[in-house]
């Protein structure tokens, strides 16, 4: 299989050293028993061995359904929730071992934007204080310089600087999200973790925020870890995409490669499930429907985690092949052009 020229060019493009390098990241949440002592009786393996790199100026989309561990990955990368094991190298520094005070100067470099624009802004503070807070915490500006900087930031995210004395409730959801973005940009970070930044917004407003995020990447040379469940948004904005299922990345590829030539059955099912705003296409589509529910992340299936719901496992594989899925965990290694964690990875065109 030969990749088209564009993809080849994309891959060959010198990307330099990664800004962020995550290796075998794990985050387990202990399950405590009942009773006085509350012994640990097990662990929810929210993130169970995730590795990826993000290069300067690159947007990596991390997609998956609820409970796949994508948000936990984002929090662990930011050291908001300490990782259980694994390594997070940011600009050549290992983050997982840092204490809170050691982490503080690094917070200037890597920031987060949250999903819910109603919950992520303190309702008691005017917008000025919200955007100025990181500058005040890190003692980067005060007085007139602080006022100028906040004005600049508001303008940067497409808001009117004159509205700085207003309170969050006076803004629409999209505008609040912009305030959150301005706050994240105040420290001039190299990288943003965007945790479902547009999924709480109405579509007409979502588009403006997506455009803004694209512009900011181009103007400021930012890198994004873009966490989302909406594959349409990810296809629109990301350069590379990682698909997560039950705490693991199952497929990782350049954007067009992943959407045009998915090889993992889960990615294929996910893509086929997205409704298209196009009645004719929608009528002609054949959906791959998954069976059953997401297994418990406390007790994932042996071998391939997806096998319990995998249509390929159920319908196409021989007894022998199924045995392999049950016993041998598929590695995320290049198969058919890009990394895919399926023993029987095979390109299927879905869209």
């Amino acid at each position, binding site marked *: 299989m030969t990749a088209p020229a564009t993809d080849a060019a994309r891959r060959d493009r010198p990307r330099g050293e990664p800004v962020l390098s995550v290796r075998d990241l794990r985050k387990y949440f202990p399950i405590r028993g009942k009773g006085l002592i509350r012994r640990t009786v097990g662990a929810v393996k929210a993130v169970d061995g995730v590795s990826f790199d993000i290069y300067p100026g690159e947007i990596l989309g991390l997609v998956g359904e609820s409970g796949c561990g994508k948000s936990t990955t984002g929090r662990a990368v930011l050291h908001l929730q300490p990782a259980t094991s694994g390594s997070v190298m940011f600009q050549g520094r290992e983050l997982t071992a840092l204490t809170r005070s050691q982490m503080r100067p690094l917070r200037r470099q890597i920031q987060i934007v949250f999903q819910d624009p109603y919950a992520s802004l303190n*309702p008691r503070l005017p917008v000025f204080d919200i955007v100025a807070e990181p500058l005040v915490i890190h003692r980067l500006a005060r007085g007139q310089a602080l006022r100028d900087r906040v004005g600049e930031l508001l303008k940067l995210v*497409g808001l009117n600087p004159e509205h700085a004395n207003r309170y969050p409730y006076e803004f*629409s959801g*999209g505008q609040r999200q912009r305030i959150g973005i301005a706050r994240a940009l105040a420290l001039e970070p190299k990288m943003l973790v965007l945790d479902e930044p547009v999924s709480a917004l109405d*579509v007409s407003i979502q588009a403006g925020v*997506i*455009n803004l995020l694209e512009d900011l990447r181009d103007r400021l040379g930012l890198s994004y870890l873009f966490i989302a469940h909406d594959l349409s948004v990810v296809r629109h904005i990301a350069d590379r995409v990682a698909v997560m299922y039950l705490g693991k990345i199952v497929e990782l590829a350049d954007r067009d490669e992943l959407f045009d030539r998915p090889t993992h059955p889960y990615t294929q099912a*996910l893509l*086929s499930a997205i409704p298209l705003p196009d009645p004719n296409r929608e009528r002609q589509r054949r*959906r791959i429907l998954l069976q059953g529910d997401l297994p418990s992340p406390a007790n994932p299936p042996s071998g391939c985690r997806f096998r319990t719901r995998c249509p390929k496992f159920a319908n196409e594989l021989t007894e022998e092949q199924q045995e392999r899925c049950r016993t041998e965990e598929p590695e995320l290694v290049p198969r058919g052009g890009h990394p895919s964690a399926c023993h029987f990875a095979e390109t299927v065109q879905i869209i």
Partner: protein
Amino acid sequence: MWQDPRVSQQRSSMQTISAPAVQTEHSAGEPVLEVTDLEVRFPTEDGVVNAVRGVSYALYPGQTLGIVGESGSGKSVTSLAIMGLLPPSARVTGSVRFKGRELLGQRDRQLAAIRGKGIAMIFQDPMTSLNPVLKVGFQITETLRQHDRSLSRKSAESRAVDLLRLVGIPNAAERIGAYPHEFSGGMRQRVVIAIAMANRPDVIIADEPTTALDVTVQAQVLEVLRTAQQETGAATVLITHDLGVVAGMTDRVLVMYAGRPVEVGSVDDIYYSPRMPYTLGLLGSLPRVDARERQRLTPIPGSPPSLISPPPGCPFGPRCPMHLDQCDEAEPPLVEVGEDHRAACIRSTELAAPDVTAADVYEVTSVDDTLGDAPTVLAQEDAEAHRAGTLTGAPTDLAAPTDPTAPTAQRSTEEDT
């Protein structure tokens, strides 16, 4: 056709709006559900919120109508009004006729006979319609026996198992003994659909039935909804903000903005030749998973208008790239723009040219610097909170309103005194 006297006065002035907006080629026979000039107002501290301002449509047997709109457009309030599930403080006028029978102004007991048996409703959050302390099997048999007293417990139970099997719940015979919390979100929504189809209703109203679900689960649930439609032959109203879901599920689409329909037509008309700038903008602002190359999205600037004393002109005017001074004079009526296709815009003919795209009309921008009046959207949220309260019999969401930091959740939740 018989006309409701309350409606006829307004007809003279707003004729184009009052005529049943939705008709279809297979409009054989009488509409099973006919909504005419439905208006809903909520009194609040800040004034009266005009949540729905004149919705009319006719739903024919077997038809699927999609109602699309963003938050605060009044799409959910419309269906709650039809079902008589709004809080007592809401003032509802207009006419809702189910099989020729007027539903508005009916007593709750009479409505209860129609709910479930005639019109069934599926909500976004299945937990609001399932009783958490009762086994799902009991909840289904109860629904069955409520409308058919002669049904024996035994046969009701076997029918419940059939229904659960039909909606794709594995081991249905054992699962009827399970409680709602023992099911996943998608499975619960299947149970809700099973209950909705239990009495073979003539109309199913599904209000954002898959919004809370993951995309693969959404695909399963939509499939189940299709099965339910086929099994019962029910006409369906599908309310959603997701233009993708509407494209695949519906025959006709009604686009709502600021409490009013602004465009109605067949699904193809709406998607391939929208004649209202708002519809065009909505389609242009959607990122597409099937897009070959990266195209800039076209956001619609601004935010929806206040539903408390809305401006006299077109409610979309302030956000509309094609806005003229004329637009502010009067609210444009919903007029015929094509066969079976209506739009509420005085410049809709300009959009009739082939291949008009959102990018031609909208400025591709990433700026959003005008302050609207955010509280408008809240009326809707409050209505939803009320709905949750109405259905479970519990007070409205206790967690949010007791929190003084969430001023938004508190507006207009008080009962009328």
